[in-house]
């Protein structure tokens, strides 16, 4: 595997962890979040800071994951008070608060971020394999969660919170759990990212990044694990396949979001289900 392929695989793996984390919050539990990149950044900054202090890789990843998950639960508390578009605006604000904070902190490098991050000590190809291993574990975890009683309960919360309460569901706890798991995964992705990029800049975790992650979830089909995996691979590779696609990345992502919302709100997963049903339906005899 060449260094270029290893780098592509690394980015795909990191994006997959990010998108599947958001899928747990928005797809499984139905809570809108437009600030996912902030938790990616929290994981990255935590891991980078500790890494520069000489803390070993496993502990930096763990710290980034826990820090992002813990702050995610605090942010999730807002979801107990507001819903839908109000929650969207609130989570978007979290992203801006994060960026505004790190840009002004000299000990976090301010506008220049953190550079000179030590490497993982692994060959880039091996490190790409490690990222893929984490991504595969997150896929397995997502599939397990979806089929578990937790997934069943998340579906109920996403469908009708008040009805869920009358069947004995502690809606607040489940919402916070979704935020905790999803944001912890974003923190893990942030930790993995720093050993890959070796430098972090505040802008890497801006609102556009949050929208890019959301695009992967929506185009894949909110709530579908395999749909999100497919969309993440496709959308990460798209700028690599064509130079024009790289230049017009935002334009293309925006247009794709609009087209999906108009023609296939269930994303790729919804499209696949529809085609399967059409194929299975008995053909009319003229």
């Amino acid at each position, binding site marked *: 595997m060449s260094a270029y392929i290893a780098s592509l695989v690394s980015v795909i793996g990191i994006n997959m962890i990010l998108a599947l984390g958001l899928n747990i919050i928005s797809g499984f539990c139905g809570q809108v979040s437009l600030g996912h990149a902030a938790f990616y950044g929290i994981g990255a900054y935590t891991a980078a800071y500790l890494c520069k202090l000489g803390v070993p890789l496993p502990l930096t990843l763990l710290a980034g994951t826990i820090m992002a998950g813990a702050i995610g639960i605090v942010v999730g508390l807002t979801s107990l008070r507001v819903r839908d578009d109000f929650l969207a605006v609130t989570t978007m604000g979290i992203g801006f608060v994060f960026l505004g904070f790190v840009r002004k902190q000299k000990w976090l490098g301010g506008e220049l971020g953190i550079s000179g991050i030590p490497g993982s000590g692994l060959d880039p190809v091996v490190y790409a394999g490690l990222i893929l291993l984490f991504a595969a574990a997150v896929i397995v975890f997502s599939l*397990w*969660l979806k*089929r*578990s*009683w*937790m997934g*069943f*309960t998340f*579906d*109920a919360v*996403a*469908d*009708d919170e*008040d*009805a*869920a*309460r*009358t*069947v*004995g*569901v*502690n*809606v607040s*706890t*489940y919402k916070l*759990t979704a935020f905790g798991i999803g944001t912890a995964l974003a923190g893990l992705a942030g930790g993995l990212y720093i050993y890959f990029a070796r430098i972090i800049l505040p802008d890497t975790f801006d609102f556009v990044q949050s929208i890019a992650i959301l695009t992967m979830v929506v185009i894949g089909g909110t709530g579908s694990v395999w749909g999100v995996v497919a969309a993440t691979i496709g959308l990460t590779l798209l700028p690599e396949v064509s130079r024009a696609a790289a230049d017009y990345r935002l334009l293309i992502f925006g247009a794709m979001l609009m087209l999906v919302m108009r023609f296939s709100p269930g994303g790729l997963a919804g499209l696949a289900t529809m085609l399967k049903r059409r194929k299975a339906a008995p053909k009319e005899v003229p």
Partner: protein
Amino acid sequence: MTVLARIDDLHISFGGVAAANGVSFTVNQGEFLAVIGPNGAGKTTALRMVAGLLKPDSGRIFLGDRDVTGLPAYARVRLGLGFTHQIVRPFYSFTTIENVMLAAGHYQTGSPWRALTSRSRDAARKRAHAILERIGLAGQAEKSPRALPLGQRKRLEVARAIALDPKLLLLDEPLAGLSSAEATTMADLIRTLPGEGITVVLVEHNLGEVLRVADRLVVLDAGKVLAEGVPAEVMKRADVRQAYTGVV
């Protein structure tokens, strides 16, 4: 007779208008109690306060000896309280049987950790199927609630509440919107519940069916209890007839 629930001096106001103004009554174990009254009497409000879906301004609610006034709705469900909504609220993204399964397996969802580590839905499916069969919805098990007519959706709401294994079941107008035949079938169905150890509190406008199935009546008017007792005696009272029908 054992008192299963005690509702003590409940008050609640919305924008200065008192919807409950000192509502007090008891529910005896194993009985079929109906709460009746004219529109705006505060019946649904009282029921929603008992269920934990509305917080009273003052007053206490006891389930057995336990004061549950400060407990949220889900915690009251775990103590054995079931509730059906006046306007049916099935989970539309679930099939009919899945709606009942979630309630039948509610012990799996008590903590997120238990929910995450539990996968098998076989026991819940089996129990949900038995309840649907009993309630006459087995044939609709795999259909979306959207495909069910109102009468069947109302039955689904009751099936979901029964699946919670409640000691006390609060039914908010389960006969509303049903045809006469459907209402009779539904009333016959819920009449059997006290025989299975489920105490029923029914809020209902269909007086004919209420008088046919209830053991005891509580009449509310203007947010207060006007009368309570055996249906035949309560309905003889002039003040009840005036409040309920407007005719002396």
